[in-house]
């Protein structure tokens, strides 16, 4: 999967947890999950679990703590997908 493809899918994963749909429409690798998308930190675990299910990967919290912006989420997901292949 390309980074753009992962980003498009990630947008769907994040969507239920943000009310800032305007910012979600303009999402890019620099978008911060908490500051820009106003996602409550209590939903970060939900996003990780949903991403695990979506990509059939396992993300431990050492990796998850880096997932603060969209670019770093793509880094972690992309690396995990790579390890599967």
């Amino acid at each position, binding site marked *: 999967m390309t980074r753009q493809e992962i980003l498009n899918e990630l947008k769907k994963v994040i969507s239920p947890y943000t009310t*800032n749909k305007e910012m979600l429409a303009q999402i890019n690798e620099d978008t911060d999950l908490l500051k820009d998308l106003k996602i*409550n*930190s*209590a939903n970060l*675990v939900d996003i*990780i*679990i949903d991403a695990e299910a979506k990509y059939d990967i396992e993300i431990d919290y050492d990796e998850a*703590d*880096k997932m603060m912006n969209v670019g770093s989420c793509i880094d972690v997901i992309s690396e995990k997908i790579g390890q599967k292949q």
Partner: protein
Amino acid sequence: MLSTGNDIVSLNAINVTCTKQPNFYSKILTPTETALYKQSRFANIPFEVFVWLLWSIKESAFKFLQRIDADILFTPVKFVVSDVQIPFGFTLSGFEAIKLTGIGFNGIPTIRSTVKFGDHILYSSSLIYQEFISTVVNGAEDFSRTHWGIKWIDSDDTEIQSAEVRAFLIDNLKDNISISIGKNPLGIPVLLKNNQELTIPVSLSHHEYYIAYSFQL
């Protein structure tokens, strides 16, 4: 260094089924913390509430330490909660108020714990009602200089919550003339008087219909 950290979790907003799944709670609790729940003193606390209690303690500790070390990352399993003290005969009751404020927790039944992160040892006090969990973390066991507040608001819009929690905190400052709340360059909320940063550490949180603050004098 003087700091404070708080968190509020609305229990109506959590996914109970999901929280009970090992792949979910193992991202928050260490195996030792999960084993703690088997002790009889937790009998009156549902497992999902226990998970979110520990989340709120860890998140509060993270916010406390973020002021000291801006590069710190929030890895819940690296914040280790121990010595959880539950008031005798504790049961979950309804909040039955719009707001609650206090200085310290004397006479208020709170769940207390110690939370460690690396070499840091911090202390937590949590209020738990059927509707929410509200935690404050302090650098010492003495909370007598810890000011806190919890309030129900009629909007779950994050922009409104953010404005309301700031107004709520300012309303509860003894001297609030020319006081505003801004963010320092690291994004941490700070009190400003005539746009000059004050040394009083503050922490703000909101979740669904609840907002909460803490500050330390």
